[in-house]
């Protein structure tokens, strides 16, 4: 039964992530990414980590992808334009993705030479995660937080129009 569910959602994750890359319409790509992340959340639950699964849905599908959709609709990108001229960009992206994936696999196999501690349910429970995140990995956690804060401030500054005193203000939002 569990194997069946695993197979179903693993296939769904792989299939929908292919759609994300291949589909021409960005809204459909985003919606397939929703399916991908939902399937991965189900896989987390099957692995005995319901907390991480719930967070996956809450943060990624519930918030980040909605913002993706928001931006796509705000810019009104209906279809990917002139896919031919972007082939170089796509090839570069594919190469970078392959490199990152290869690097991750290499690290995985390098570490797998000697036996590792098994991923116990205690480690992926709420308490275990909190202990790791706010204990051993507190500094990286805070650095990531600072990085995100800097990114938010940077985005706000970049999005802000420079003040133009000689022009009367007309196009302000009501």
């Amino acid at each position: 039964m569990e194997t069946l569910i695993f197979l179903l959602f693993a296939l769904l994750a792989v299939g929908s992530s292919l759609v994300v890359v291949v589909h021409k319409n960005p809204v459909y790509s985003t919606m397939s990414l929703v399916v991908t992340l939902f399937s991965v959340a189900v896989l987390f639950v099957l692995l005995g980590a319901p907390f991480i699964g719930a967070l996956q849905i809450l943060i990624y599908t519930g918030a980040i992808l909605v913002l993706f959709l928001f931006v796509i609709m705000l810019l009104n990108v209906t279809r990917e334009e002139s896919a031919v001229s972007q082939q170089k960009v796509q090839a570069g992206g594919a190469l970078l993705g392959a490199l990152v994936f290869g690097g991750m696999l290499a690290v995985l196999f390098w570490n797998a030479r000697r036996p590792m501690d098994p991923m116990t349910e205690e480690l992926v429970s709420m308490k275990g995660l909190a202990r790791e995140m706010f204990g051993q990995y507190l500094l990286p956690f805070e650095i990531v937080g600072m990085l995100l804060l800097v990114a938010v401030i940077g985005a706000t500054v970049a999005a802000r129009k420079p003040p133009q005193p000689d022009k009367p203000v007309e196009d302000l939002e009501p």
Partner: protein
Amino acid sequence: MPANLLATIVNIAVMVGFILTVVPVMVWVERRGSALMQDRPGPNRLGPFGLIQPLADALKFFFKEDVTPTAVDKPLYLLAPALAIMPALLTISVIPFGPALTIGDETYPLMIADAPAGVLLFLALASLGVYSLVLAGYASNNKFSLMGAIRASAQMISYELALTLAVLAVVIPVGSFHLQDVVDYQRAHVWNFIPQILGFVVFLIASFAETNRLPFDLPEAESELVAGFHTEYSAMRFASFFMGEYMSMTSLSALGVTLYFGGWSLPGVDLHGWLGAVVGLLVLVAKIAFCMAIFVWVRWSFPRFRYDQLMRLGWKVLLPVAIVNLILVAVLTLSGVLGAP
């Protein structure tokens, strides 16, 4: 059939039956309630007090022509109304509706999904509700609909933050994400809305925004956007948005009463066994009915917010208040004022 499976099926029948029954009842309450507040009779021809009116409304929806405009993005256009109902049906599964029932040697929890991360699961599944609005607005290929969808996505993301922070503050003194533990904590101490009145107010306001009810129904805003995200929908597809709204109101009310008003429990009354199960369910339904009455009352009392006012309230008032409440509850819990979990 194994007993566990049977218990789950009974639980599903009770809760899903309840949430589906709410819709016609709420149609009647909303129409008669608005009439009462506007000093007019309201629907009073069909049956005593117009009680059969929802049936007539439903029949009308069934027999109307289902128009699909030619320029719509068809798959997404058809998917959106189905997504409107789904989150409410899923989230109701983590709400406990009575004390655990012991039959023979087995103990059965009176909730569909006995999930240890129940509160998070509720928030996660409820956050999927925004997709139906956004997709409906996008797929309709209509400027008013698109405006509604853009508003919906920004509004629901903003208010979800405040809502989640308010809910997390409840979880701190309890020490568990399981909603049955939240109820047990309140049976041992006081109902959460007394020490956490600040968080409750944030939760209440944010839940109006999350369910797109007046004064925050900006995604539909009929005075400016025709009908917003569901402008192009008709017949049963329109009705499913309508049902989805009432059903998510119900499930959010169920979460609210479970977090702040003791859920199925009554103070000073020890509910257990079969009688406890029945009384617990009735108590929960009564509390939810009270919340739904507040939803109707607020809808017909307040004018709609402007979009910038909505955003300012969400980010500059509710979010800071929710953070202050979170810190306050954490300090009170650590200093032992709120009682040991």
